């Protein structure tokens, strides 16, 4: 049975909520009473539950199986964290309550911040960024503020070719010009090329470490040193921090700012695309420029430092990035995750993530080209290319065929430095049995791709939908539902 859109259910007069009768009053709506229907369908609770339950079953999810999206870190989301985030003491408090009535919430933010600082070996943390890209922006604004504070108007940010698209986009959004740094044949930043490019116009270098090829940058300390010597600052994209948490502190690598995707390293649920949360840790040099608001422990009291009180001792802040205090609901989950794992568990997280990725790398490198496989172990993700596929088959075909094998595909065509890239991140919450099953499925599909099996072009056939026409969607965008007559009239 196909699930219709709610707009097709013809329930214009329906509703799934009941209300007490409103007291009779004279309206004070400034003569702007609504005089036109919104045209929103309403479903009873049984219909609503059924609609969304049915829809949900057209999704793949970690709860259903391995979800090896490289760089996306789809690990298990503990249910304790969901329960904690729903405690009324966290879920049912208003961001503008008097601070004396939210001391527990402020303590939670302060505690989480402290662990993030300690885990990264940095100096301070900004908790308010709403997601990774927002965190990048936070980092770059702090960098720009620091440079401007010393009267240094630099205009360029260097970004490796292999960076996430958010890196250059963020640099541009923060007013910078972006230049690429090339990669070596071993998948790392080309240190010589970087050094050659550094100069008085370079404000910062944005580096992902472990990088998007799944490799640790062995020259990281030297890179930081060179950047600093050139008067610039080092931004680290912390998307892959999960590979090193508890084993390596980015602060020891000389970086100045790094965002942490709580939904990657600390397992807050991805929810089909968000919400995220992107706290940013800073070096001492950047700390004075960190954004508002933040929480400060003052004896037994937790103070909220906002615009009003910032002047006293945080006058150089670059300002506020968002209303209120950040993603509290994600903070609760992340702290629950950190306390659950503890010092030993977090280190084990990194180790198991790396072990699982290497296990996949080595189990597949005979059937799939692993461009950097020879240069040593990978970190938390294993990178392959489509070299050797026959009959016009591509990474896309392998990915779609994997759907028919019961798995979510890996990240495709990213990073851009590898042809037909396939980036596989199993994460630490997969068992060996699950990995073996997944490896078997990939081997099967890879053999077919190398044999040029044309049936791969038709995959998936066992999914809720066959391949979707993305070109059509972009050429004639239909972004909202229109009643058939409207839709027709529009053509």
């Amino acid at each position: 049975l196909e699930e219709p859109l709610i707009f097709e259910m013809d329930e214009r007069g329906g509703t799934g909520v009941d209300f007490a009768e409103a007291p009779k009053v004279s309206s004070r709506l400034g003569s702007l009473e609504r005089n036109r229907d919104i045209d929103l369908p309403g479903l009873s609770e049984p219909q609503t539950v059924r609609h969304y339950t049915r829809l949900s079953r057209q999704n793949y999810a970690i709860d259903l199986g391995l979800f090896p999206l490289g760089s996306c870190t789809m690990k298990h989301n503990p249910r304790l964290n969901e329960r904690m985030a729903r405690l009324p003491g966290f879920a049912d408090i208003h961001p503008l309550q008097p601070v004396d009535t939210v001391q527990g919430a402020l303590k939670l933010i302060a505690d989480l911040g402290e662990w993030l600082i300690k885990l990264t070996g940095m100096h301070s943390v900004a908790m308010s960024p709403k997601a990774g890209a927002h965190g990048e922006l936070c980092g770059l604004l702090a960098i720009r503020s620091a440079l401007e504070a010393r009267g240094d108007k630099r205009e360029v940010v260097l970004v490796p070719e292999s960076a996430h698209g958010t890196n250059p986009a963020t640099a541009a959004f923060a007013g910078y010009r972006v230049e690429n740094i090339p990669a070596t044949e071993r998948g790392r930043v080309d240190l010589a090329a970087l050094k050659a490019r550094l100069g008085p116009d370079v404000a910062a270098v944005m580096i992902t470490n472990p990088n998007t090829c799944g490799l640790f940058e062995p020259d990281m300390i030297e890179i930081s040193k060179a950047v600093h010597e050139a008067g610039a600052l080092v931004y680290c994209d912390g998307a892959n921090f999960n590979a090193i948490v508890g084993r390596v502190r980015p602060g020891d690598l000389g970086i100045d700012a790094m965002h942490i995707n709580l939904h990657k390293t600390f397992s807050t649920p991805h929810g089909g695309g968000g919400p995220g949360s992107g706290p940013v840790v800073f070096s001492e040099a950047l700390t004075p420029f960190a954004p508002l608001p933040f929480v400060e422990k003052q004896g037994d009291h937790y103070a909220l430092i906002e615009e009003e009180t910032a002047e006293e001792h945080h006058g150089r802040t670059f300002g506020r990035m968002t209303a209120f205090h950040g993603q509290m609901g994600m903070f609760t989950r992340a702290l629950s995750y950190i306390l659950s794992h503890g010092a030993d568990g977090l280190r084990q997280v990194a180790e198991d993530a790396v072990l699982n990725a290497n296990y996949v790398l080595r189990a597949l490198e005979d059937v799939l080209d692993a461009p950097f496989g020879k240069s040593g172990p990978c970190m938390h993700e294993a990178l392959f290319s489509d070299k050797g596929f026959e009959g016009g088959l591509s990474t896309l075909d392998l990915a779609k065929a994997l759907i028919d094998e019961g798995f979510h595909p890996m990240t495709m065509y990213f990073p851009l430095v590898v042809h037909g890239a396939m980036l596989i991140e199993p994460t630490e919450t997969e068992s060996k049995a699950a990995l073996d099953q997944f490896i078997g499925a990939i081997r099967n599909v890879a053999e077919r791709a190398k044999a040029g099996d044309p049936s791969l072009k038709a995959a998936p056939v066992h999914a809720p939908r066959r391949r979707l026409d993305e070109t059509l969607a972009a050429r004639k965008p239909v972004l909202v539902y229109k009643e058939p007559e409207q839709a027709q009239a529009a053509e």
Partner: protein
Amino acid sequence: MRYLPLADSDRQEMLRAVGASSIDDLFVDVPEAAHLSTKIEGLADHASELSVERQLTAMARRNMVAGEVPFFLGAGAYRHHIPASVDHLIQRGEFLTSYTPYQPEIAQGTLQALFEFQTQVARLYGCDVANASMYDGSTACWEAIVMARRITRRGKAVLSAGLHPHYVSVADTMAKFTGDVLDKALPELTAETDADRLLAAIDEETSCVVVQYPDILGRITDLTPIADKAHEKGALLIAVVTEPVALGAIRSPGEMGADIVVGEGQSIGVGLNFGGPYVGLFACKEKFVRQMPGRLCGETVDAEGKRGFVLTLSTREQHIRREKATSNICTNSGLCALAFSVHMTLLGEKGLRQLANLNHAKAVQAAERLAKVAGVELVNDSFFNEFTLRLSKPARPVVRAMAEQGVLGGVSLGRLFPGAEALQNGLVVAVTETVTDEDIEALAKALQETLA
């Protein structure tokens, strides 16, 4: 460790399989100096669920829970009753633990829900199209200003004095770096908004005028004249809605000519959560769609001709366009958007109207009751579920004193506009369907005692 399935025997076997003698062999690329040999200072080893639950519960108990006291805070975040089925549905593992729908064949659940969400938002706002959500209202507001700059190629934004001060702060922060000029002002404690100031300020340099509706003091202005003037000057009208429930009772900004409508969606489906995660709503006229930030879900067909949905127009986005993208945004607020959409589906036209009507009626009752308290004066002529009182004393200490008596009585303008002397006696009071008659009496009594 309950979350880690590998047994030590698995680890040994796997290390052998990859040709490593120990786990350290896999971290060879880490420079010697960067290896952390000690444990994280102060962090205990792994803990039982029971232990973690105890630690967090102890923190939670140190907060005054909105639902347990007379509660009147708004100012950009509103406490509404959310049907139990909303949280049940968004906790379905298939929604909760799925990723951005990059593989649409196995993500139709998320995609169809987003398509429905976009349609609901567009209709609610009176716009042609909406995106698949932003972080929150404040960042959506800045993205709208950037979008207006991109469309008009002008750099001056005129901000209404009634715009939420946090939204202004966010724009201020960003404008410092982008060079946008912001024409702004503090609100006054009067029934009239600064519509006249806005009309006067719109000129040929203006990219957009940004008006909150209802505004931070709860006042409702007709946006039509502002839209007309803006369009006359080639500028755009951006309307900001922090309380979407209001649109069940008053006209949509789109109907009044707004080009872009953004706002906070938290009121519908998402709880207070101390400020986040929330869900930014973003809608605009169809002609601007390719300048929109954020993800968009679009309809298409599959290889068999069946209707399906995909993320689309991604050539606007950072993962394709990199530094030329319309925004750096990547993660959206998908799960909160789902919660919004489920709640809105439950409400429907009928329920949303009832809800809005109930909110307004309760607010009118409360305003009338509180205005009778000695030392309290109602500032607003018009309002929806939130209004401003002028107290005979600075409101901030009054709010704190009432909190000590167990009444969360509103948001002081002193908190929202620190340093603004003229506003310090202002108290913004929100009254939703969750407020009882007893709550209103408790607030009246607390105000009376505190102001006496």
